[in-house]
């Protein structure tokens, strides 16, 4: 089965822009170490046939939210919902069941710094 792991973390201001909170907390070298660990785990998951695709997202102030109501399109700046933690990236994985997906999510380096929402991919009725 396929599961989407949605990675959420807090963003913090750094100069004029917002960045993942851990970049501010850990400093540049710390953030680089995190990125390296994430890449290593992604490679590991790929090798073991779990990873389908994964991407980090650029900070939420680059987001535009689009709606169409009564045929009219409107756009607003920023992410859909104003929350403390924002969606920062995702991994689409293949796992035997929900508990295997949870185990994979728990080993994500970012699980220590933010939270991972694990959602099964919807299969038609």
């Amino acid at each position, binding site marked *: 089965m396929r599961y989407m792991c949605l990675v959420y973390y807090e963003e913090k201001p750094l100069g004029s822009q917002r960045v993942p909170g851990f970049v501010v907390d850990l400093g540049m070298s710390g953030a680089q170490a995190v990125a390296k660990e994430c890449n290593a785990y992604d490679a590991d998951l790929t090798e073991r*046939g779990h990873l389908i695709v994964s991407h980090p997202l650029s900070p939420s102030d680059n987001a535009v939210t689009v709606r169409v109501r009564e045929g009219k399109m409107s756009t607003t700046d920023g992410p859909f919902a104003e929350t403390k933690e924002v969606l920062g990236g995702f991994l689409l994985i293949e796992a035997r*069941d*929900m*508990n*295997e997906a949870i*185990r994979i999510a728990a080993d994500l380096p970012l699980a220590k710094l933010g939270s991972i929402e694990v959602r*099964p991919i919807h299969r038609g009725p």
Partner: protein
Amino acid sequence: MNALEQAYRTHSRRVLATLIRVLGDFDTAEEALHDAFTAAAQSWPRDGEPHNPHAWLVAVGRFKAIDRMRRKARLERVLPELVFQRELEGDSAVSHSDRGIADDELRLIFTCCHPVLSPDARIALTLREVAGLTTEEIARAFLAPVPTIAQRIVRAKAKLRDDAIPFRAPELRELESRTESVLHVIYLVFNEGYSASGGEQLVRFELSREAIRLGRLVVELLDDPEAVGLLALMLLHDARRETRATPAGEIVLLEEQDRSKWDRGQIAEGVALVERALESRRVGAYALQAAIAALHAEAPRASDTDWAQIVAFYDLLACAEPSPVVWLNRAVALGMRDGPQAGLDAVEAVLATGALDVYPFGHSARAELCRRLGRVEDARASYERALRLARQEPERRFLERSLARL
């Protein structure tokens, strides 16, 4: 199903049981199992299936897990001694004899049914780790949300880890009580698969089949009369599976079931096991229930049922496991032996205790006996009362049909 899926079905649970023992941890072992099958998917189609797939899968899984531990140890600068200790322990501990493999499975069942876990957690963990069901299948079988079951499993594993529960069969002095817990879990799994409470037909069938397989395993490895009794009980109930409901899911009562469709081979096996269990010095509730089921199964027609013996076994069962439902069943059997008035008196005595106030079948039993005595209005009132208590759709329809027939 391709060859590898077949191999997964055949070997994965036993390989996992061995890996959990060798690696000492559920999650590490599951990861290793996945890695072993990933490696098999690459090499088996090319080189053919190995002579001893269990040994191959355990060896590859263990190697991958130790390799991973080494890398992690380097990364986190943990002392590597722990890893090497595991390596050494593992070597001498891996046995691929049938007995060795079965012992690993038994250890796993005992661990999953450990008394530190809640009954719900024991069932979920046993179904996933021992029976190999997915979280989603367990959720469907129990009509529970997937996250609820998933968390139950996560917490159960954490509890076993935090309490440092060793992965082994219990000591002799606690064997009996621990076996009881295992049998109870197996019986609950069987009932979940057997009862008409809903969920997907296919998954439910799988549950019963798995419960019977586990029952056989426990009987083979532990000389326990109650394990024998439980296996007999499950086989005897399961022999009637086809006839208990119409294809549309309507309940068919025992006396109306088509006995020519009962599985005679399975009944013969069940009856032989009942005899074996009754010969032992310790006869318990499972063996007694199985004895009652055997008497029903052996009667060529419903009217041939030996009600005198059934009442006698219910008397013993009421001592071994006093419960209102047992009293009720005894009262109904008494009605079959001594006539409806005696049955009604006995049923009313049980109802008067108030212990069956939320159980629809106490009132429907009273209704049926009143009907046989020609007291139609009393029968109607009791069926209506039962109908108000019925929670499941097939039960409700059954009671409505009975009411309409008055």
